[in-house]
């Protein structure tokens, strides 16, 4: 493991190398669907980001363990706040099988991205003021747990989006149902045990909850590139937890607050 030494002999805060930039790019794409600016915590074990979207309706909890990287050196926690749109623009410049290196230029406060492919490109971008407080996770007891294919979920949501802007997700432990009721139209989707899209379903009690499609569809659409399997956890009128299984050692979890209809 190579640390980069500065003139005064101190170590750099961190230095990271990933041989395939695609993983990082897809992860940032998935995060940026909810937030424009994000604070990454780069620590000894890996990179983390946890944040709520500006309307505080949804939350993303992302982690990439250091084993995902080809080179990872960081002996303390560093917080770096970046504009994700700008970051994504730069990461998109990395082609297939091109390596990407990240470090912080402490002198200028700039985040430096080096893409090594047929030739070497170095981009610098400003870091923003990082939020001090750490985002807590919601405390929820989930009564239902459903695992299905990400693509199956995406298609079901596309179906219900035709008739309404919110969807009721419910399960009795045997099947997963998605219902939407629009002004004049309705849609019902059932995924029974044994269907190709549904991998497992369990519930300690029948549970249902309603969610805004504007958020749910965007989340699933963004995560579909990173994951084939998603686990949904929910309870009556509580937030839903969407855990997209990653191909690397890490997590991509979203929470979305419910919509509670008042008569």
């Amino acid at each position, binding site marked *: 493991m190579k640390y980069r030494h500065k003139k005064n002999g101190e170590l750099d805060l961190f230095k990271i190398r990933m041989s395939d930039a695609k993983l990082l790019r897809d992860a940032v794409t998935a995060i940026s669907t909810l937030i424009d600016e994000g604070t990454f915590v780069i620590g000894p074990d890996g990179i983390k980001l946890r944040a709520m979207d500006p*309307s*505080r309706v949804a939350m993303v909890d992302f982690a990439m363990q250091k084993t995902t990287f080809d080179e990872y050196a960081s002996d303390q926690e560093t917080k770096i706040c970046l504009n994700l749109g700008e970051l994504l623009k730069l990461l998109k410049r990395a082609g297939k099988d091109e390596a990407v290196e990240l470090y912080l230029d402490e002198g200028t406060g700039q985040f430096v991205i080096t893409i090594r492919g047929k030739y070497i490109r170095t981009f610098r971008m400003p870091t923003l003021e990082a939020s001090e407080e750490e985002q*807590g996770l919601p405390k929820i007891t989930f009564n239902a747990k459903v695992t299905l294919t990400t693509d199956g979920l995406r298609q079901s949501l596309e179906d219900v989006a035709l008739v309404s*802007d919110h969807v009721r997700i419910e399960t009795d432990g045997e099947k997963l149902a998605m219902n939407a009721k629009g002004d004049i139209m309705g849609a019902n989707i059932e995924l029974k045990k044994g269907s190709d899209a549904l991998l497992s379903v369990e519930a300690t009690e029948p549970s249902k909850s309603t969610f805004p499609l504007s958020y749910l569809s965007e989340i699933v659409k963004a995560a579909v590139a990173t994951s084939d399997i998603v686990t949904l956890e929910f309870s009556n009128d*509580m937030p839903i937890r969407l855990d997209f299984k990653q191909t690397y050692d890490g997590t991509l979890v979203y*929470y979305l607050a419910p*919509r509670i209809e008042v008569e």
Partner: protein
Amino acid sequence: MPFQEKLFRVTRQERSRSLCFLCHGYRRLCGKSICPIITKAKTLMNLEKGLSKENIFGSSPPAVFVGSWNYPKVNAGPLVPPLPTVDSSIMDAPEMWIDKTMDEILGYRFSLVRGKRFIDVKDARAPNRLLSTFQEIVMASKPVDAELWFNKRPKLNIVFTPREPPSGPSASVIRAVLAENPKVPKPIEKVVSDTDLKAVDGIKTLYEAKISQRQITRMLSIGLLGTIRYKRLVPTEWSITAIDDILGKKILNEILGYPWINEFMIFGHMAFSNNVQILLLPSSWMFEAQEAWLTSADSIPSIDYELVWGRKTYASNLAGAYYASRLPVLEYLQSIRRQAGVLVFMEVYPDWIPIGVWRFREICREALRKEPLKFSSLEEGLNELRKRLKLPLKKWLYNSRIIPWFKEQRKMTSFLGQNTM
């Protein structure tokens, strides 16, 4: 991707709603032998006598008009009243019209003679002498004395459109000459001479340099903005809404970082037979605009809305009115450094003569200059709105997407432990 001006076209719904209630622009379908609007226009047109000659000399506000008809070969040309060396700036300055009467505004507009010439929108990349002259007029900071020669005597043909104010007699212009060297503000000179500057960036630069929105709109329209490869004329009605949208988006990016307001606020103003009421909610940015034309007892408002990320598609139900009302609200939020959910209710009463979408922008601005009424609950706020709107509140609420969202959508903050937020 170059700037997509065609997105901002006038939608069919907008046009049919905004034109004269009875004849929708086709003369005398109302059955009356004389159209009251045109009669009124004619009485205001006392200067037609002064137009016997085939050229005029006057001071342009500075103003220009680019039509959308026959796009991409459009009618373009300057607006010049036959009055030299007067301060004509008010004739094309909607931001100064809020305390004027309809008659005064129509008076300003009908005294503007419109020179026109068919020009291909792409000619902006290599303007000929005539177009260059038009462009020079628009770049000026003050009214410019100009002389126009026509192929025949300008004729009055009043056309009302949903977005831009009407203008007076028009004729094909064959020659245009400036009688003076116009004074061009530095930022304008800089943006215009930068042939690598994208239209959207140019617009933002000009706005930051405090160039008036009206002048930016005119500049976009006459083909002064954009990189050299993509420069083109933009019909005035499209450019009005394009600028409302671009400036709005710019401000929106900024306010998303601000804290939320902490109570319900109501602003309102009535002018020119239009009533605008604005309700601000303590939430993240959301925006909904509803517009109702109170032509009959069973009017139904049209609606468009956006959630926190803004719109990705054109607000085609309200079109011009949506963007014209969103900008002033964003400007207000920027000035108080706060974020809010916003509902705008716009009522148009039958004696309104369609003279442009600017009145929503200016009435909103006027409303937001006043002290708001503040409430601690949504119910109290809605009760106040009930008093201020002529159309029953029930009809507005039936349409609303933001109100149910506000009432029913929970936030993640309610499910966190106590040690956070």
